[in-house]
């Protein structure tokens, strides 16, 4: 008989976060029960959904009013021609990136800790891009003419200006939305099949069976599925880099001081992933608590994700410093005066919020204690979301308010319309996400089963399993977690 290894319970256990096993999971049926079990709608859920829809309606009302009256109801103060909407647009696009990163890149890198969180992250991506996609239209002076940006043969015999980054924005966002949605759906197919088989309600059963494309769990299907998934992962990996690079070109391609920098593409991508991981924490931590999924999304997973977060935070911090360095190094008085204005000008506080939330606070993740403290992770993730929103604010507004022509320097203050639409965007995002978590499995059932050992031929008592079978003794809580 082999010895039973049980984790020590010291103050600071040195548990390698590389260990992403699910010791508390016994069998495939348990996986199905636990995960599909979360899908029963509850009163709380309905309340949350109602609130989300309310927020969305507030935003929608504000937008209707804005279309009727004109953009002037928003806080634009020329020459600050891009305001909260573009800030929020970039914010949401950024959120999306972590999803694809986790589900695609980490998949290719075989980073096991993604297994239990990627479904949420991916859903988040799709919904975030859906939200982001609204904002470019929202901020148009004539939103009803947005189709002028789409190249289609028309009897005006004219085409879009392909030199303009904005046209490529359209392509980038649409591509990103299509691919990430497909990716999400393909990954769902086996799970949908599993749900179909357990479903009793005829209508839902029919729905699931249509969605699961008649999945029959045959080896052939699994082989095709694996290839398809791998292919899509490879396909969407470049998107992680390209999409936000294209978005960053909106700014890098212009000559506005503070925008006109070659650094922007990598800088934006890093920032995007950083913000995305922040949002993943914001979403996954409550879910694992409320849905009682701690045995699946273990603290080790979060620990690993936190390390990724720390890394991207450092990248972003470097980019910030680099910007200031270039500002000084350019030797252009106009650039320098802008950078001075960024940190000491009218919006100094925004700049410092950005630096604090994105560069200073994440440094706490060097401490394993805090990495494994879900409460802190959650609080930090909130700061990161805030900080990343302000990062975009700090990039866009001071630049426009402090350009070449001193006579046109100005201030900018959003109005309640801007805020209402910002709120609406969160409502819209939350609405989709809430609908998602109660209708589709928030954790990839199939992939979890992959890391749960197959059912042994002979039934065994729970305790005293061979260590080589990688089974630790059953514990309701994963060791080392504090919250």
């Amino acid at each position, binding site marked *: 008989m082999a010895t039973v290894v049980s984790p020590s319970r010291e103050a600071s256990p040195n548990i390698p976060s590389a260990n992403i096993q699910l010791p508390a999971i016994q069998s495939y049926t348990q996986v199905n029960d636990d995960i599909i079990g979360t899908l029963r709608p509850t009163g709380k859920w309905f309340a949350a959904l109602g609130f989300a829809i309310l927020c969305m309606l507030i935003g929608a009302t504000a937008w209707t009013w804005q279309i009727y*009256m*004109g*953009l*002037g*109801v928003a806080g*634009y*103060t*020329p*020459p600050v*021609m*891009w305001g909260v909407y573009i800030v929020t647009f970039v914010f949401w696009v950024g959120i999306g990136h972590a999803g694809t990163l986790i589900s695609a890149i980490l998949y290719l890198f075989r980073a096991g800790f993604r297994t239990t969180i990627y479904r949420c992250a991916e859903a988040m991506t799709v919904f975030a891009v859906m939200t982001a996609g609204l904002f*470019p239209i929202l*901020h*148009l*002076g*004539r939103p009803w*003419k*947005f189709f*002028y*940006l789409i190249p289609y043969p028309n009897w005006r015999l*004219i*085409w*879009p*200006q392909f*030199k*303009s*980054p*904005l*046209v490529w924005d*359209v392509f980038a966002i649409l591509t990103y939305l299509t691919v990430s949605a497909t990716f999400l759906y393909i990954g769902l197919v086996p799970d949908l099949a599993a749900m179909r088989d357990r479903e009793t309600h005829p209508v839902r059963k029919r729905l699931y069976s249509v969605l699961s494309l008649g999945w029959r769990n045959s080896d052939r299907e699994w082989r095709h599925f694996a290839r398809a998934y791998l292919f899509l992962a490879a396909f969407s990996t470049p998107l992680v880099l390209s999409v936000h690079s294209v978005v960053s070109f*909106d700014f890098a*391609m*212009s*000559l*506005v001081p503070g925008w006109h920098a070659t650094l922007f593409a990598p800088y934006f991508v890093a920032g995007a992933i950083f913000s995305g991981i922040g949002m993943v924490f914001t979403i996954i931590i409550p879910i694992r608590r409320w849905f009682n999924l701690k045995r699946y999304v273990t603290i080790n997973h979060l620990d690993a994700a936190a390390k990724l977060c720390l890394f991207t935070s450092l990248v972003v911090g470097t980019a910030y410093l680099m910007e200031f360095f270039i500002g000084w190094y350019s030797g*252009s*008085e*106009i650039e320098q*005066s802008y950078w001075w204005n960024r940190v000491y000008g009218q919006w100094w506080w925004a700049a410092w919020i950005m630096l604090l939330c994105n560069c200073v606070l994440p440094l706490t993740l060097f401490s394993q204690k805090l990495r494994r403290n879900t409460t802190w992770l959650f609080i930090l993730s909130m700061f990161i979301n805030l900080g990343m929103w302000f990062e975009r604010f700090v990039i866009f507004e001071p630049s*426009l308010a402090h*350009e*070449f*022509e*001193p*006579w*046109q*320097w*100005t201030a900018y203050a959003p*109005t*309640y319309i801007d805020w209402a639409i910002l709120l609406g965007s969160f409502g819209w995002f939350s609405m989709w996400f809430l609908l998602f978590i109660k209708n589709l499995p928030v954790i990839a059932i199939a992939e979890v089963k992959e890391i749960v050992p197959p059912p042994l031929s002979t039934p065994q008592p729970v305790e005293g399993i061979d260590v080589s079978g990688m089974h630790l003794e059953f514990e309701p809580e994963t060791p080392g977690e504090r919250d």
Partner: protein
Amino acid sequence: MTENSAPSGVGRREFLKILGAGSAATAAIGCSSDRVERLIPYLTQPDETVPGVSNYYASTCRECSVGCGVLLETRDGRTFKLEGNPDHPLNRGALCARGQASVQGLYNPDRYRGPMIRKNGKLTPATWTEALQLMGQKLGEAQSSGGAGNAVFINKHESGSFPAFLDRWLADFGMPAHLSYDALADHAVIAANRQSYGVAWPSLSFSAAKLIVSIGADFLETWGASVPQQLDFADARAKLEDAPRFVYIGPRRSLTGCNADQWVACKPGSELAIARALAGGSVQSAADASGVPAATLEALQRELGATKPSLVLAGSSGAGSMELALAVNELNKQLGNVGTTVLTDQPITSLEGIATDADINAAVEKMRAGQVPFLMVRGVNPAFTMPRAAKVADALAKVPFKVSFSSYPDETSELCDLVLPDHHPIESWGDAQPMNDVISLQQPGMDPVYDTRQTADVLIDLAKGNQRTAARYTAQNYMRWLIDNFPGGTTAFTAGLQKGIGSGSIARPAARPASTGAPQAPAIEGTNGDFYLVVYPSPTLGDGSGANKPWLQELPDPVTKICWQTWIEINQQTARKLGIDSGDVLQIKTEQGELKAPAYVYMGIQENTVAVAFGQGHSAYGRYAMGVGLNPGDVLPVGFDAASGSFAWTATKVQLTKVNEFTPLVTTEGSARQHGRGIARSVPVEELPHLEMEQEEHDMPGKPDQSYLPGLRSRMAADAMGEIGDSPSRVQKGMYDPEHWSQMAKRRWAMTIDLARCTGCSACVTACYAENNLPTVGAPYQMVHTAFLHGVPGGNILKGREMNWIRLERYWEGGEDGGEFEPRFVPMLCQHCGNAPCEPVCPVYATYHSPDGLNVQVYNRCVGTRYCSNNCPYKVRYFNWFGYGEPARPQYAWPERMSWQLNPDVTVRGKGVMEKCTFCVQRIREAEHRAKAEGREVRPNEFTTSCAQACPSRAIIFGDAADEEWSVARMAQDRRAYHVFHEQLNTYPAVVYLQKVTHPAPKAAAGA
């Protein structure tokens, strides 16, 4: 005309659409047009007006007393633009902002629609028959009761036949001669001139002078005949090396002062001492009185003695102002300037015969004493222009019957019992005599907009209706009367109408004895208070008559750049001491009253002085004037310079207290400093000879003699013609290939702006509003549904949303520590870059580079991403934040009839699209079409843009830089030429600026 203009007009242009009830309106025009046809047009075929082709009727501007010549651009029976009359000797084609805005008086939405009669305490609309019947009856009563002898008629001062006609009419009704009122006139100077030269206003030759010293005379603003003076001053400055040095002495550095090379700050009331010192009197006493360092005065005295010829001017308005004016006239004589720079032999006659403020005040006192049974007011608004302390309203209440001929519901006419609204000058016949032997004719451009009647015609009708006088008034109407009395008769008259100029002289009314016994204002030193109060007439609103014209309200004050507001100017150093910042609300207090307004911290004002502009703060006068700003007249005492009878504007000291409030200044200014970015450049005159012209500065894209530069080689320009690649030279030069079939090779529209000429008067800005249908956004009613700014005048401008395609930037150089500072004005408009940053970023091709070098904005293609504006380094692109052109919207910029002013050639931009300066592309196309129809090329300098045409300094020159025949091509080669931001950004702008030239004090003086 009805038949052909109506249907083709409707819908062809937005402006008629906006008009709403198209049919009704066009019907109204229809009736008008046949009358219009009978007029003799200035340019196009006389017998017929062609739909869609403008006629230009030569007329006379009546906004101020001077009487410049204007052309009324009229199409399809509607006058929609005023332009200076190039053949007019006075303004030579230039026109000031107030003149431009006169058309907004014509279509003003708050004009009286018809006669009004006071019924149970309220003015109620009536028919002309009722009104005239009432008027006739009252006249009869006045005659029979013998009260006629005490009747008073206050008329807006104007030269020409009407004053004489009016006096004759009054005489026939047994009434005394009328009072010709002009609140802006400098009566002290006029009186002094009469005494010294025998004329009211000699014309001044700045270009002949080598040194100009102005003691508070704002000759570029409201002092005398501003437009001709500005024309001549600009010509003088354009002589560069030989240009006169200009020293301005006064407590406040006005717009005129900002154009001076040196500003000497003196205490108000000490001007006389300084004038004496300059004339050789005691420098020390002057220094003590004025707070000016003796050295400066000595230097000036020396310089004045050394430099001949010179020109000394005075214009203060306080106790002893006439004394000052006389002293200065003496000084000019003593310096031998009379005849060289002071031309007494060719006076501005339109300033003759103005009743002094004292006369008006005397009349008001008579009313208060209840001796006036019958009052008639026309075109003036004493209830506003006289200080509140004069209690005009109470005095008027004592008059049993008051008639107003005003077209607008202003403070005075609202107090009257009967309103017989007069035609707007654009609707009426008349004449003016601005100079000896020059008659400036005034003819209507169109039929009356509302049910109004020209006062002269009303008077004739009344006289006909009265059996005693009927026999003597045979003329069918005033026009006939004019023709009958015109020197040279009908033929001369009709001939004169061609150019708007007649020769000969018009009988002037007999000079009235100036009233005596006006209360003498005390010397300002004597009054108690800690700050001198300087009240000056606003350069944009004049005596307040401009306040109901949104163009003028929206036109920032040339010096402070504040609009839709009243502010208190306070010295920078003093403000620092008192801890006052711009926008902090200050309260000034006198015995007469108090006034609370935000502070404007200004370097150009004497330490112990605060200044407030006059013209705002109406309690009536329509939606654009009411509740906007404050009236400094409320704190002024009633005091006069008894000698000349001119009202003392600068009469009292005030208590100044800082109120714990903050009101943001409605200003278009971001930073008043250039931060060394070389936007407005100037060069000292001694460096001028060494000034090298940097070739790169002169790379004007499209010039044939140089290789074609990026903007024009840009594929975009070629794309526009789809001509890419069918020949190597075509690829190289795009549209500018000389062999190109479209013959666009020569065209490169460009503009030069000579900062040595520009005085910052901002006439170009208003001209642009008039030509390009720019909406005004600052009216209180336009600021609705907006948090925090609801109903705030200029609220949209606080948000930086003004739509001025051309703006005048005013930068300060130096003076941070209270020392000398140099103001620089630079008109900033779309630079039409050859290599424009805004073009490649537009996702829908809404902005692109046209083959003839225009940076084009296509409104109907624009979706409003506003990326172009982000990428424009000059920040000259403007966005339609609201539906300014949609009548259903609260922000509608052209309420009822204002829309008639819209230029039919220019699209009214819709909500959510970007717009900017087009180089008046509609004028370019019009000229091209005309040339094509006549089978010729566009002639050099055949046309110009609206701003260039209006500019009273002739600072702006527009044309084809690629064709040496155009003067712009020559100007662009000037040694002073430079491009803004070109070095940093490689934009190849089409706008070339010529550096300002400064004339520092001579070394000797500077050393002192």
